[in-house]
C-alpha cells in the first residue's frame, strides 16, 4: 500500500521525543512492504486530511499548545470527518486536549477545542509528573509510559487506559486515562508512547490496515530490542507499583 502519515507541528509540539512515534510507525509500516510518506504540517501550511492514513500530533508546552490550537481549530471539521471515515490518529501529551470541547488555562482563560471528543481540560499550577503503569481493554499486558501534564480532563467516556496502577488518570490518581474512540487514540502519556508499547503500536497499525480493508501480513518482522525494552520497563514499573 501507499500510506500517508501526517505529522502536525513537528517543531512546535515536539517535547519529549514526540517524533519517535511517527518515525517508528513509518519504519514498521515500511517493513510490512508499504510505501510510506510522512508529511509534516507547520502552522499555516495546507494539509489534505482526506488522503491521509494517519494523523499525529505530539506534546508541547502549554503556550505552544495554544499556538497549535489556533492553527488547528479551523481544521476541526476536516479532522472530525477523517475520524468518522476511520482514519487512524494519535494525539499524545498536551495534543490530546485539542481534541476536546475546551481547554481552560491556569489563568482561567477558556479556549475552544475541535470537539472530536466530549471532554474538557482544565490546566492548573500543579504538574502531574511520573511513570505510568496502566491497563487497556485493547490487549491484556500493561501499558507503560510517562506523563508530564498540568491538566485535569473531565468528560471522557471511552478512555484509552481503563485504569492506572501507577499514574494520574484523566481526573484522578489511578483513574482511567486518555481517550479512545474507533480509530482515534489520544493520551497524555508523553514522548515515544508507541516505542515503549509495542502492542499499542500494533493496535495503531491494525487500525490503519482496517480502514484500507487490508489484512496485516501473516509474517511480520521481529523487533527484539523494542520487545525487551518494553519487558524491562514493565517489570520495573510493576515492581514499583506493587510497592505502593
Amino acid at each position, binding site marked *: 500500500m501507499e500510506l500517508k502519515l501526517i505529522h502536525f507541528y513537528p517543531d512546535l509540539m515536539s517535547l*519529549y521525543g514526540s517524533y519517535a512515534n511517527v518515525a517508528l510507525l513509518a519504519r514498521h509500516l515500511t517493513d510490512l512492504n508499504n510505501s510510506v510518506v510522512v508529511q509534516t504540517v507547520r502552522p499555516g501550511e495546507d494539509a489534505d486530511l482526506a488522503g491521509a492514513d494517519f494523523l499525529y500530533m505530539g506534546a508541547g508546552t*502549554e503556550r505552544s499548545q495554544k499556538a497549535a490550537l489556533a492553527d488547528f481549530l479551523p481544521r476541526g471539521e476536516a479532522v472530525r470527518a477523517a475520524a468518522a471515515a476511520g482514519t487512524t490518529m494519535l494525539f499524545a501529551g498536551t495534543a490530546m486536549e485539542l481534541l476536546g470541547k475546551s481547554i481552560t488555562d491556569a489563568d482561567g482563560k477558556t479556549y475552544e477545542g475541535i470537539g472530536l471528543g466530549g471532554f474538557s481540560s482544565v490546566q492548573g499550577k500543579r504538574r502531574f509528573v511520573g511513570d505510568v503503569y496502566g491497563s487497556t481493554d485493547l490487549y491484556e499486558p500493561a501499558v507503560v509510559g510517562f506523563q508530564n501534564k498540568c491538566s485535569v480532563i473531565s468528560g471522557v467516556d471511552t478512555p484509552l487506559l481503563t485504569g492506572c496502577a501507577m499514574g494520574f488518570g484523566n481526573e484522578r490518581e489511578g483513574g482511567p486515562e486518555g481517550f479512545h474512540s474507533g480509530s482515534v487514540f489520544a493520551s497524555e502519556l508523553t*514522548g515515544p508512547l508507541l516505542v515503549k508499547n509495542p502492542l499499542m503500536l500494533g493496535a495503531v497499525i491494525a487500525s490503519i490496515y482496517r480502514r484500507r480493508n487490508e489484512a496485516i501480513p501473516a509474517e511480520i518482522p521481529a523487533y527484539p530490542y523494542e520487545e525487551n525494552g518494553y519487558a524491562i520497563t514493565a517489570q*520495573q514499573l510493576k515492581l514499583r507499583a506493587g510497592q505502593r
Partner: protein
Amino acid sequence: MRKFLAILVCKLGHFVGKFIGKGSSMPGQVALKICPDILSRVTLPEHIIAVTGSNGKTSTVEMIAAILRADGRTVVYNEEGSNQIEGVTTMILTHSTFGGRMKADVLLIESDERYAAHSFRYFHPTEFVITNLYRDQLTRNGHPEWVYDAILPAIHPDTLLVLNADDPLSSCFANGHEKVRWFGVNECSISSGTPSGVYHDGAYCPVCKSPMTYDYYHYNQIGAYRCPSCGHAKPKTDFTVTDVDLGSGELTIDGDVRIQLAFRSIYNVYNILAAYSVCRCAGVASETACRVINNYILKNGRMVRFTLGGHRGTLLTSKHENSIAYDTNLRYIRESNTECTVAVIVDAVSRKYFTSETSWLWDIDFAQLDCPHVQRVLLCGRYANDLAVRFSFTGLPQEKLELHPDITEACDSLKRGGSEDLFVVTCFSDRDKLLSQVQREPV
C-alpha cells in the same frame, strides 16, 4: 533567641552530619524548622551572587569563586552542591557568627532553578546569572517554559540580572526588568547557518510563538535570533566573545582579552563568559579574571581519565534526562578525531528518585557518533535495549553496535582486547559502576 538556637543547631548538625554524609541539607532543614525566617535575620555580605539555569551552573560557579578569591575576596559557596533552600541555609549559618553576621565578602549560590523563588524569599541576590534554559530533567522540571515561570518570582527588582543574550528563552527575563547586563558570543568560526540537535526549540518565539529567524546558530537554540512578528531579538551584548578558535583552543573577549581553553567546547566558552561577566559586574579587573580562567581546569570531577585493559579512557559525565549535556559530550567525541570506542551507560536514570522514563534518549543527537573514527559503540546498562532502538535511528551501522546490559560484562569485554581510546558517556547515577572497575589517573 530562636535565631541563636537555629545557628547553634545548624553548626552542630553540620559538624556531626559531615561524619554521616548528611551535613549539607539536613542542618539547614532543622534550622528552618526552629526559625523559619532565619534567612531574613542574618546579615549577609555586600555581594550575593546567584547562578541558575539548566546547564553550566556548577562549572560557572566554580570559576566565579576562583576569580573572586584571586581578587582577594572571601567567598562562601555551596561546593557540596546542595542548591535548594535547606542547603543554602546550612551554608549561610555555618559561615555566620552566633550573632548572625556572615563571615564572607561574597555569598555565591548555585541555585536550583525550580526552587530559586523559595530560596530567595527572605533575601535576594545582588547579581543573578541565568545561564540558559533547556530541556532538562523533565521528571522534575516539566519543560523549559514551566521552569521559566518558576524562576520569575525569584527575580527582585533590585537584582542585577546577568543574562545570556544568545538564549531566546532565558533572555525574556529582561522584559520589564531595568538592571540587566548581557553576555553573548558574536558570529565566529563556530557559528552555523543551521541549528544542531534533534529538536529545534528556537523555531518559535517564546514571547509570541511566531516563527523565528536566526542570523546564525552556535548550538541548539543558542544564537542570534529574531522574531519578525514581535521583535524579540538577541540584544546588544555588554560582555562579548568576539572570536573563538576551538582548534587552537583560544577565545577572545571584547576584542582584547585572550583566554586559552583547557576544555575546547562551545559550552565551556559560554560558562567562562558567564563567569567573566558577573565577576566584572562585581568589580573584578579584567586582567584578574583572565589570569584565573586562562587554561582553567574544572575541579568538579565531571571529566575523569582512566585506563581499562589496553584502553586509555575518558569518562565524560553527562546528566541523564538532559539532551544538551549529552550533546556536549558527543560533540567533544566527534571533534576529537581519535580512533575510539564509545560506551553509553544508562542503568539508573536517576540516583535521587525512581523512574523508568527514557523518552529523553530521543532528544539526544546520538547521530554525532556516526563518524569514521568511532569504531564501535557499547550500549550498556538496564536500558541497553532502549538505547539500541534509539541508535537504530542514527545511521550508525549495526555492526558497530554492541549490547551489554551488564556493565561488568561490558568492562570485561573491553579488558579482553583493543587499545583504542575509550570514551564513556554516562550520568552521576551510573558512573561509579564504571569507575569501580578501572584504574583512575590523577587529575
